[in-house]
């Protein structure tokens, strides 16, 4: 009830045209305050009530501060309500939000300010006396367009215009369709629109589900009729207003909302000899403040292993290790780092962090039939390549946010690698779990969830802001009013439009799907080379089949040829369709409660004159809005306060264990303040200065003395820096799921190093055990294994692979008994131990001490210590003896089985799982 009536109260404040796009986005409110002159006498509040409001409420709810978008400074403001909807319901104090908040003592927030029973009574009596007409205003198009959008436009909208009728705008309604104008202004009962609705002919009940809409509510019909009866008024569009810097809701003072300031690297008074680069100049003094210094430098073997795992997710191969250990020249360490950065394994490692942040998955999720995303893997390959090629990070972001608006791919004579990459990159915004391919989970609220997930990933992962909070109410901690969330949503409306929704690709036989089905999310623009190769393959098959056609008994051969056909290559992408629906603030996040119209814009708290958000068509004649391109350019401006900081902080976290800002996705007031703010800013500036080179930052971080510390922890460090927030040592790190799996493959000599392509499938047992399938050469790295949301490799599940719902900014690092059960009892792990043993036998033969040395070198990058050697020899001898007790086992087999057991134990050892 409340939600419907507030549309009525809202009338005068929405004075923008549907198409107005302003350069900067604060115009909406300015417009609502200036455009319509309001006759205040119409909304008189009795003096006693006004006095109470003045005393208790208007300090926060005045026309400037407008906490919760509500002002109680005047009657007209009061009747407008706030971001939660109408503040009062005429005649019904029990239904009025304002009364409820006061009664419950929620307002005013200060307990000492609470209203007395008598004061509450005064307000209740007044609310009871207000009549509906007093609070209602003439309606305009903004009261009816949202109703038409949600009830009618699937069949009378952009993609389908049954009876040639378009109901998306007031003008189109007046224009009408095949049967003439849909309305007669001033006469609702003569208006076809109202007649069809009242007779229940429209929207047709039996077809609601196929279009994923709900029936129109009687109050909505009433609103439509009233708007028509009042003359079908359309408020004029407001001209763009310049952005004031005085929006009272927006506090720009917070450190992360202002750009990093250049600073000089501090001189070191003590321990200057320890510093390798500026990073140490920031770390050493902080350590000194708490009475600590850098831990001693780790030995070369430790550094080699740490660096290899950090950059490639794999241990150093014995040969690579020998090269580094045997390099007597200065800069040997730096050269080793460079070799690792040049390895294709680097991208396979670092793409994983990005894919976690983006929420990569090979399926849609949310529904029982976990619909596959056939072409998602191209995005995975794109990210791996981007890291390997050190694609400048600003370009990397621009492609992922607005790749479709960078180059006109539709009229390009040839699809180059660059155009292909641009389009594949937009898969970033398509990673959210998505059930909307099915009609019963494809309603507007379901679509809004998908959009909210995409905004959440972008907000927390890239911008370090918890935007999701502002979807239903203004942010509780950060100066992010609710309207800023909807401004952001409006930037993406050209592609993510809840009223012109492009559904996920549907495959035959998957279940009931909607008739309101637009296109699918695939684009055919793979590179011209790939397309030709595919076409040639198809023609070759066609030719062979044609040749066989007339021959007798060729059916089987033809069938075999047909099965060699591959589906047409396509890209899982997002693109601007042009002509987006208008965006209204949804009060409390409820699409049935539309508030103000907004236009696309960036969060005001990040606005500065220097950062432009300039919406232009991406190229002349383009139908695309260009909004996302404007946003991407704004986001990657060198002066952006957050982008570089958030990115270097994530790099830092993955090298040093914790971020300088621990909350990787929250740089706002509820996030953790940076432990080393100057260092963070210096790194951010350095990142931009290097041309947004991720590899440059790796080099910088990894060549610091801070990074080269050993991981040994002493009592002083435990006492003075228990959480290692001052970086008084390097952390002892447990291998994550991928590093552990890939490393087992590598030591076993079973790593199939092929790159890219569709994911490896899982073999799933009846009891749920899911194991990646092998290839002819062994097994591929885990990043190339299928990641459906509902079936994940058991290995991943055991070692903290996150649920991508929607994404994961920081993985867990758990230590639980099922991991031990898996490592001890799983068949694949045992078979890898056997291959590992085989490899050792091939390389060094079957002499015990040689086997032990080699096993250590391969698995742990070092030779065993005396104690280890003693323990290991005794165990291996004993195992040989135990295995040979079985009469059916000859001595060679017993030696092999014993070594297998020994290797299995090494894979299960802490030294294998933890990196210093």
């Amino acid at each position, binding site marked *: 009830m409340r939600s419907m009536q507030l549309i009525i109260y809202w009338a005068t404040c929405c004075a923008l045209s549907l198409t107005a796009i302003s350069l900067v986005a604060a115009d909406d409110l300015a417009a609502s305050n200036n455009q319509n002159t309001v006759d205040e006498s119409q909304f008189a509040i009795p003096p006693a009530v006004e006095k109470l409001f003045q005393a208790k409420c208007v300090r926060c709810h005045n026309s400037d501060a407008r906490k919760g978008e509500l002002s109680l400074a005047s009657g007209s403001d009061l009747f407008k309500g706030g971001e939660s909807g109408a503040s009062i319901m005429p005649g019904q104090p029990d239904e009025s939000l304002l009364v409820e908040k006061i009664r419950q003592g929620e307002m005013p927030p200060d307990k000492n300010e609470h209203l007395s029973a008598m004061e509450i009574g005064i307000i209740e009596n007044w609310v009871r006396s207000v009549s509906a007409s007093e609070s209602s205003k003439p309606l305009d198009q903004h009261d009816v367009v949202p109703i038409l959008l949600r009830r009618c436009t699937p069949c009378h909208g952009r993609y389908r215009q049954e009876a040639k009728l378009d109901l998306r705008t007031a003008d189109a309604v007046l224009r009408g369709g095949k049967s003439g104008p849909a309305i007669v202004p001033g006469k609702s009962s003569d208006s076809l629109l109202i007649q069809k609705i009242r007779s229940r002919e429209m929207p047709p*009940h039996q077809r*609601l*589900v196929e279009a994923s809409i709900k*029936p129109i*509510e009687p109050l909505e019909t009433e609103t439509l009729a009233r708007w028509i009866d009042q003359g079908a008024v359309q408020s004029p569009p407001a001209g763009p207003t310049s952005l004031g810097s005085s929006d009272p809701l927006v506090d720009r003072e917070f450190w992360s909302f202002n750009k990093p300031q250049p600073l000089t690297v501090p001189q070191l008074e003590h321990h200057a000899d320890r510093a390798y680069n500026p990073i140490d100049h920031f770390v050493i003094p902080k350590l000194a403040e708490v009475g600590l210094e850098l831990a001693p430098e780790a030995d070369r073997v430790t550094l080699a292993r740490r660096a290899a795992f950090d950059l490639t997710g794999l241990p150093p191969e014995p040969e690579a290790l020998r090269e580094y250990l045997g390099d007597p020249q200065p800069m040997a360490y730096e050269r080793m780092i460079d070799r690792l950065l040049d390895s294709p394994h680097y991208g396979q490692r670092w793409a994983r962090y990005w894919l976690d942040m983006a929420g990569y998955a090979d399926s849609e999720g*949310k*529904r*029982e039939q976990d619909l596959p995303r056939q072409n998602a893997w191209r995005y995975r390959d794109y990210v791996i390549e981007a890291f390997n090629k050190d694609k400048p990070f600003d370009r990397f972001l621009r492609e992922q946010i607005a790749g479709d608006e960078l180059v006109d791919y539709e009229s390009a004579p040839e699809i180059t690698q660059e155009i292909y990459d641009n389009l594949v990159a937009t898969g970033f915004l398509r990673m959210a*779990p998505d*059930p909307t391919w099915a009609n*019963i*989970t494809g309603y507007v609220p379901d679509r809004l969830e998908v959009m909210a997930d995409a905004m959440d990933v972008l907000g*927390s992962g890239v911008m370090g802001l*918890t935007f999701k909070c502002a979807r*239903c109410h203004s942010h509780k901690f950060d100066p992010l009013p609710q309207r800023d969330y909807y401004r952001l949503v409006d930037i993406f409306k050209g592609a993510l439009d809840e009223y012109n929704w492009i559904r996920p690709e549907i495959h035959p036989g998957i279940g009931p799907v909607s008739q309101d089905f637009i296109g699918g999310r695939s684009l055919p623009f793979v590179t011209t080379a790939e397309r030709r190769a595919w076409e040639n393959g198809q023609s070759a098959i066609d030719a062979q089949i044609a040749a066989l056609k007339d021959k007798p008994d060729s059916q089987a051969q033809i069938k075999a040829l047909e099965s060699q056909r591959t589906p047409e290559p396509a890209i899982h992408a997002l693109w601007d369709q042009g002509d987006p629906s208008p965006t209204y603030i949804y009060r409390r996040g409820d699409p049935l409660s539309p508030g103000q119209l907004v236009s696309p814009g960036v969060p005001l708290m990040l606005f500065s004159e220097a950062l432009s958000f300039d919406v232009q068509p991406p190229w002349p004649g383009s139908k695309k809005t260009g909004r996302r391109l404007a946003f991407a350019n704004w986001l990657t401006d060198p002066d952006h306060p957050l982008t570089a900081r958030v990115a270097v902080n994530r790099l830092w976290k993955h090298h040093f264990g*914790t971020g300088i800002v*621990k*909350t*990787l996705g*929250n740089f706002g007031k509820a*996030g953790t303040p940076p432990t080393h703010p100057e260092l963070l800013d210096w790194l951010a500036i350095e990142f931009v200065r290097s041309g947004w080179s991720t590899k440059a930052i790796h080099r910088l971080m990894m060549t610091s003395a801070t990074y080269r510390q050993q*991981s040994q*922890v*002493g009592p002083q460090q*435990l006492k003075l820096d228990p959480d290692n927030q001052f970086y008084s040592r390097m952390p*002892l790190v447990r291998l994550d799921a991928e590093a552990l799996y890939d490393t087992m493959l590598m030591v076993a000599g079973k790593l199939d190093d092929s790159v890219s392509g569709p994911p490896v499938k899982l073999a799933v047992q009846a*009891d*749920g*055990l899911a194991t990646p399938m092998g290839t002819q050469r062994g097994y591929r790295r885990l990043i190339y294994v299928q990641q459906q*949301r*509902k079936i994940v490799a058991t290995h991943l599940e055991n070692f903290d692979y996150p*649920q991508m*719902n929607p994404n994961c*900014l*920081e993985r*867990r*690092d758990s*230590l*639980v008994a*099922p991991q*031990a*059960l898996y490592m*001890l*009892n*799983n*068949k694949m792990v*045992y078979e890898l131990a056997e291959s590992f043993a085989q490899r050792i036998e091939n390389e060094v033969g079957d002499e015990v001490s040689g086997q032990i040395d080699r096993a250590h070198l391969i698995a742990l990058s070092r030779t065993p210590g005396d*104690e*280890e050697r003693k*323990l*290991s020899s005794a165990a291996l001898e004993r*195992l040989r003896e135990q*295995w040979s007790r079985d009469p059916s086992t000859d001595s060679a087999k017993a030696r092999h089985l014993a070594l297998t*057991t020994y290797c299995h*134990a090494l894979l*299960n*050892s*802490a*030294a294998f799982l*933890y990196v210093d």
Partner: protein
Amino acid sequence: MSNSEQTQSTRRHWMQGVASGITGAALAHLLAAESGGTRLAATEKGIEADKRWQDLQSRPPHFPARANSVIHLFQNGGPSQMDLFDPKPYLDAHHGQSMFDKIAGEVENPFSAGAIMRSPFKFAQHGQCGMWVSDAMPHLSKRVDDIAFVRSMYTTNLTHEPAVYIIQSGKMGPGRPTIGAWTVYGLGSECQDLPAYVVLDDPLGLPVNGVENWQAGFLPPLFQGTRFRSSGSPVLNLRPDFDRPEEVVQQERDLIASLDRLHKLQHPGQSVLDARIASYELAARMQLSATDALDLSQESADTLEAYGIGRAPTDSYGRRCLIARRLIERGVRFVQLYINVHIWDTHTNIAADLKTACDRTDQPIAALLSDLKQRGLLDTTLVVWGGEFGRLPIAQLPADKDERKAGRDHNKNAFCSWMAGGGIRGGTIYGATDELGLHAVEDRVSVPDWHATMLHLLGLDHEQLYVLENGLKEKLTGVNPARIIEGILA
């Protein structure tokens, strides 16, 4: 004390002994099995609280608890309230009348919507409380005085997947911790040889949303449900998938232990390495305790008979109910029972299909309540029964429009769930629906209310049970206020 009870109590004692056998530091860290603790809720107590909330050690609730463990009998599919617990004479009187236009927006499948349909089941009043139960549940109707029925539940989505996410985790969509995960996060476990949160799923198949029903979401994986299979190996990889002589297994285990001790000596101050060693010891103990908990041959013939074990159609669910009791006895905090997908999803043939669903579960559930009561466990165990939504008062017709095969479509605006046991006032009938059973109208209970009440009975304040996720306070009940259902509390 009966013989079997004595054995039980000795066993429990023994297990506690084993648990304390690990050196204090190692155990403490094993249980504090997560590094990077800053992500978890830091309360006023700061870092202390941080560490406490990352382990499975038993910890005091916010206030005295009425129940300290939960058996959640999840009924996936949407049990029909007006055919089980909420009789509607209006439907008898208006059987056959159309009301589609009034409720078109509430019907998932409008093309199959029929007219108002009376219940094919007969209702009678039972127990001291006079609760109405239909003849589909003859066994449960004898236990109504232990149960508080809530007839005024409602939810916000009428499709299985989203509605199941909501009832399990409070939010429409995957990725949030479930009520079981929150419970063990808040309270830890009384038993360190078994998982704190055990899921007993049906060998016939998983419910809707599969393993997402017991996910830990953004809580550490330590708090997610662990599936115990009621036949075969109870836990994945509990036993090796390959054969080796026992002495080799022992030799390898010793070798790992020695290598790890050596490694630990070279890394003083890294308590995570003690925990690593302990996790391998725990894995070994779990092999024993999990097998033991599932060994129903230790139960008397009378007990097996009472649960309907050994005969169709009750055997499968009966086993899971009995295993649930055995797990609760061993100190498992949260046990969740499932039946294969959708047995309550009676779109067609409601007369036969609803009966089948009841026949499979009615006797085992009634037996579980009696058994818990008899053993004095019902006072401290909260038993929760319910699905994700209810059903409509109108018929849903098959393609041939044969009314004899009619069922009912989903209804998000009214359903019936119940709780029994610790802290619950047995024999309560709470809330009411309208004359059709279409909407909950009196004392409406939202899903967050239901969750808040469960936590309340466990001594947890739903406002105080939160984690800091990316700097934000995340709670089971979300940002809107939730209310404790005082009317069903003892």
